[in-house]
């Protein structure tokens, strides 16, 4: 018993002392930025890079003199790909470390897990990954692509340039592919594609045996119509999928695969020789040729001390989000959440694809959409680009229940799900 009490006591003391320790730091003359990306577990593979990118951006900003005359200080925690732990760590960042904004999350479920925390404690989250849409929250800024900024232009490209008539929608069984495929299915049918020309297939996370599915795709593609695969297959499962494609001899010239979750980082783990010509739709490619991007790549390689490190779209999203936040804080003159939230809408900063991105009232940003083909060196070559910028559409027009909803967080409306047909703000308040 005495030992038990002692152990508990020691432990409580430890917790309280870290709290006190952190509290002491908060009084210091820095502005704290929280970084909430998994550094271990299944998502570490994607998220660790974003943590490094954020640390680099913060370091660069400090070299330029920080923000509001103070230095920025990064607070890194590891939510370990464990969704409830995301909520716990978010709470810790906001209420214990007193961060001014948090950059983080990758999977939709991690975002969903932290949303109530940001709402309750009134802080700011920048979410850098393409996602399924159907959400707009006051405390969150979505710097990744909504489905209309990635999926729909990609399908348009295939329809126009490759004359695709038959579609395989293959995805991992979770909410992003499900929603994206629902939207795409509705979109394709609205374009006159027959339902029997659409094949939808879902696989579990980390699926590694693709033999049957790839051969099904081959079979589906031998009906005499030009066929393409729209892949929303998630990170880890992509490598075995592409390896199987290459080995079964599916060439991009015959059945192109357009992916929404495969970027430079994923390709770094692959021999891309046999994959040349398969496509990806993003808002940024490392190969985009302009001075800002060249500078960014140079800094990144120097920061990671690795000449082979690649950049990717979510990194660019953090770059945009971080610069927007800096600008908004400067405009507001304070890091106070409400003031920054007000200042954010309308902020415009250069993106890395050679233009400007603007924060819209729905907390999504404007982006160009690029379609790239995989090259033998693991990079993408842009083969098509939207003529202008595309505004992120949070509530898809192709889903029956969300087409009447809009979001506008500016003063009079201040609503994330305003129903234009009833003229009421959906679930706001109570």
């Amino acid at each position, binding site marked *: 018993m005495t030992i038990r009490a002692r152990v508990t006591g020691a432990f409580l003391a430890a917790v309280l002392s870290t709290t006190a320790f952190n509290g002491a730091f908060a009084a210091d003359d820095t502005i704290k930025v929280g970084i909430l990306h998994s550094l271990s577990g299944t998502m570490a593979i994607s998220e660790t890079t974003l943590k490094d990118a954020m640390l680099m951006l913060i370091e660069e900003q400090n070299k330029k003199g920080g923000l509001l005359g103070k230095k920025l200080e990064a607070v890194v925690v590891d939510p370990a790909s464990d969704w409830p732990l995301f909520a716990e760590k978010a709470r810790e960042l906001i209420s214990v470390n007193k961060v001014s904004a948090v950059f983080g999350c990758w999977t939709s479920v991690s975002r969903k897990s932290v949303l109530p925390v940001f709402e309750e404690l009134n802080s700011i989250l920048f979410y850098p990954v393409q996602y399924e849409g159907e959400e707009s929250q006051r405390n969150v800024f979505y710097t990744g692509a909504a489905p209309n900024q990635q999926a729909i232009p990609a399908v348009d490209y295939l329809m126009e340039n490759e004359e695709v008539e038959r579609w395989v929608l293959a995805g991992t069984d979770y909410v992003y592919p499900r929603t994206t495929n629902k939207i795409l299915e509705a979109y394709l049918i609205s374009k006159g594609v027959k339902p029997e020309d659409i094949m939808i297939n879902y696989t579990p996370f980390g699926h590694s045996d693709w033999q049957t599915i790839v051969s099904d795709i081959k079979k589906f593609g031998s*009906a*005499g119509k030009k066929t393409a695969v729209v892949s929303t297959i998630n990170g880890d499962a992509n*490598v075995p999928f592409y390896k199987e494609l290459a*080995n079964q001899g599916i060439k991009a010239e*015959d059945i192109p695969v357009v992916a929404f979750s495969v970027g430079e980082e994923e390709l770094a*783990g692959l021999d891309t020789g046999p994959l040349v010509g398969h496509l990806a739709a993003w808002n940024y490619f490392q190969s985009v040729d302009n001075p800002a991007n060249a500078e960014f790549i140079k800094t990144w390689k120097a920061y990671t001390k690795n000449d082979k490190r690649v950049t990717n779209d979510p990194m660019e999203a953090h770059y945009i989000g971080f610069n927007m936040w800096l600008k908004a804080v400067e405009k507001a003159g304070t890091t106070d959440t409400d003031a920054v939230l007000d200042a954010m809408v309308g902020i415009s900063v250069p993106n890395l694809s050679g233009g400007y991105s603007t924060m819209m009232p729905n907390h999504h940003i404007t982006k160009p959409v690029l379609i790239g083909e995989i090259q033998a060196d693991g990079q993408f070559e842009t083969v098509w680009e939207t003529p202008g910028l595309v505004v992120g559409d949070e509530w898809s027009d192709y889903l029956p229940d969300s087409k009447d909803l809009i979001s506008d967080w500016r003063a009079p409306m201040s609503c994330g799900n305003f129903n234009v047909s009833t003229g009421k703000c959906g679930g706001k308040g109570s």
Partner: protein
Amino acid sequence: MHRIARTLLLAFLLVAAIAPGLRAEEPLRELIDALGQAKLSDMDEHIAALAKTGDPKVVPVLEALGEGNLYARKADGQVFLTKESGSTLSLTDPVSGESVGEAPKAALSKVKVNNGVRRAVRSALGSLTLLSPDRDARLKAAQSVLQSPNAEALGAIEDALAAEKDGEVRALLEQARATTLIISDRPVEEKRQAVRLLKENGGREALSILSAALNAADDSLKPDIEAAVASIEQSQALWAAGQNVWYGLSLGSVLLLAAIGLAITFGVMGIINMAHGEMVMLGAYTTFLVQEVIRDSLPGLFDWSLAIALPLAFLVTGTVGLAMERGVIRFLYGRPLETLLATWGISLILQQAVRTIFGPTNREVGNPSWMSGAFELGGLTVTWNRLWIILFALAVFAALLFLLKKTPMGLQMRAVTQNRRMASSMGIRTPWVDALTFALGSGIAGMAGVALSQIDNVSPNLGQGYIIDSFMVVVFGGVGNLWGTLVGAFSLGILNKFLEPYAGAVLGKILVLVLIILFIQKRPRGLFALKGRAVEA
């Protein structure tokens, strides 16, 4: 005035005099340079124009275009064939075929290609090289005209067919002729024959061509095509069952590889080795390192990389296993459940160590050429890497069986695991036998990692994906019995692949798990249960 007119006249005369020599070259150069300015959407026409010249110099140009090695000089728009050397490109003049020095990448811009361009290049190259003296080039050409049939190439194909002597190329050309014929404007009777030929040859490509042709076909031809499609589909369905068995065997071999090391450490020694998956991962990372060294210094050895990696992976993971056994596990004998906790801890440490050293992202492990691609066996598509993995898994199994049953080392291992005290009193150094057995199991896991690196991610999470399946296989087959592991792996693999087409990948896997649970109720000690007193101990 007068002077100017005279000069002009002179110039005109000069040009006219040189022109015949230039005429052959300049339009070609113009056509090639035009590629540098063309929009992606007009490329088809430019390629067709180039192909129409029939000039053999066009072939390397188109090849370079298809491979993305064609660059235009930014200064004057001239197009060159290039070869990458570091940050500069070495340039070759496309018309003269001579090297014209090097230029920095920034001074040139790449001629853009997309899938459409590559398709056009493929079909143009096909008809251009049909008459090449090189047999392999003709074979490739025949394949490409078969893959992208183009009605205009029909004449060229027929010419080539008339001249062709080689059997294999002929067969391909016959097929190519038939496919092209169907979409051409030839008489119906000839088309009917072509349909018959395609029907006899069968295969998925034929099915694709025939179904595409169906819509545009003449009414009198339609029944023939429909019949052909139906007959091909029927034979495909028959082959599909065989294909499923093959997929099942292939999945089974992966399970066998993943589980076989565990059959030693868990099955024979009784250690619930949660770090088993990490041994597989270390083996895969060894392969990565070997390939990295080869890429940097000895590119010629790349095809041997796996052969070099195998013994190295065995040594590396075997040593890690030895260290684990000596450092931790030997204190835990007789407490099997506690080995679970310790090895779980070790697995966390190993994962994080690899993540710290190699980074969290996937690492590239390439397929050697003998493990790439596929071949057709009747109606089956057999990929080389899967075939090798099945053979490798069986070889490892056989070697292990031999080691355990026929060597003194194996005898000692079995003696120690069956009755430690007795073995010890017979003079066997049981601690060393334990250590070596564990090292052996770990080493085999490492070799499995070399094979699995060919089909899966090489990332710190690699092992996690296999650990549960491995335990299922060993337990299903019967703990302590190698044959059980073999039969267990292959039956689970085939069962899974037969369920997948009906139930889908997810539900199929759930059903397999439920079946395992039910099976264990029926045979609580697995497929091949050990008998005797040892069981209760």
